């Protein structure tokens, strides 16, 4: 089961990174969100995966899940949202002001292969 | 015909519903929860009442309950029918769009009617015209539209009209 979990996290990370390598702001943002999902899964699994564990609530059964990574990931998710929002709106502002949503440094909107 | 709303309990029905939901959420009828539920049941409608569409008042709540029961029964039958239709590979569907002139005016009953139509056998309320007069229904398997229209009017629209309007 650990292998399955690890492969999924790896796959998500790979797709996320592939998207961030694209030349336009929107795929980069989507890529970052995907990457943050995979990182959250990764961090969550630091406390070990409780197959039959109970939620980290006192009195909810002995093999409780590890509450600390959960707390960290919870904070990560919320802050992740705030930052994604900021980046998206930065992208919109860039498009509004610069007229192109390229990230590879070329100005005009025509798609010129650049920024090898 | 909407009577003056009392300041404290703008929509009595909604407050009662909220109280019941709160108790369901808490899964307990302890006095503390009851009090808290009551407080919330009054506070939330008060917060949202000022911009509430004036809703027709419930004339006969008991008819609504019987209406719901009948709808539930229809849903179960509908699902069995649709399942059979989907399952047998050689099913020959006769899908059709049906223009259904609405007699109801108020928004809430119309929504209720549209929901029941979607949930009941073989019909989905596909489109509501802008002026709220016509409802286009997509039926999975129907021979004669007029017969479907009469059946819907007879089974659902008339009771709703009774409950809400007259």
């Amino acid at each position, binding site marked *: 089961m650990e292998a399955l979990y690890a492969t999924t996290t790896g796959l998500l990370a790979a797709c996320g990174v592939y998207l961030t390598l694209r030349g336009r702001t929107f795929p980069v943002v989507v890529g970052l969100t995907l990457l943050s999902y995979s990182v959250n899964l990764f961090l969550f699994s630091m406390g070990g995966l409780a197959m039959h564990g109970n939620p980290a609530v006192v009195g909810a059964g002995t093999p409780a899940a590890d509450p600390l990574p959960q707390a960290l990931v919870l904070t990560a998710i919320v802050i992740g949202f705030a930052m994604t929002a900021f980046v998206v709106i930065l992208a919109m502002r860039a498009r509004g002001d610069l007229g192109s949503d390229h990230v590879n440094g070329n100005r005009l909107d025509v798609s010129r292969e650049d920024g090898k | 015909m909407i009577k003056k709303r009392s300041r404290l309990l703008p929509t009595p029905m909604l407050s009662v519903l909220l109280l019941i939901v709160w108790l369901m959420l808490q899964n307990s009828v302890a006095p503390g929860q009851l009090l808290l539920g009551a407080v919330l049941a009054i506070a939330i409608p008060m917060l949202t009442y000022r911009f509430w569409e004036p809703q027709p008042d419930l004339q006969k709540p008991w008819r609504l309950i019987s209406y719901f029961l009948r709808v539930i029964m229809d849903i179960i039958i509908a699902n069995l029918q649709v399942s059979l239709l*989907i399952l047998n590979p050689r099913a020959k569907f006769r*899908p059709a*769009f049906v223009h259904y002139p609405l007699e109801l005016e108020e928004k809430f009953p119309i929504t209720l009617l549209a929901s029941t139509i979607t949930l009941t056998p073989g019909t989905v309320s596909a489109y509501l015209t802008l002026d709220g007069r016509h409802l286009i229904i997509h039926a999975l398997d129907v021979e004669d539209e007029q017969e479907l229209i009469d059946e819907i009017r007879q089974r659902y629209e008339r009771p709703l009209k009774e409950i809400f309007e007259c």
Partner: protein
Amino acid sequence: MPTWFYPVLEGVIAFFLVAGGIFAFIGSLGLTHLKDFYMRLHGPSKTTTLGVGCVLMASMIYFRATTGHFSFQEMLITIFLFITAPATAHLLSKAALHQKLVADIRTRNVPDQLETASEPDEANAQQTESRLP
């Protein structure tokens, strides 16, 4: 509780679980096999919702049996579902009609010309200078 009661209860729960599963499966099956979008819409809006309803009923009874008092939360979820499912179905079909998805040839009187906007649509393409209040 009399001894014969538990196996019956378990039976009922098992029945509801399996029925729910079957209904959901049929719903998805309909979703995959039916020809055009409008026919596919019937599956999930009806059967899947009922399937999930049955599962919720099963869990209600299950927790009634194990913890001794009725838990109404499942009831609340079912209510939520039965309110939202038709709304989504309606919106989806409205979007489909708007996109003029081609319906199966056998469907009769397909509404081809939906009402056009009564007045020119104000969202014409012009540079908007947005001043936030």
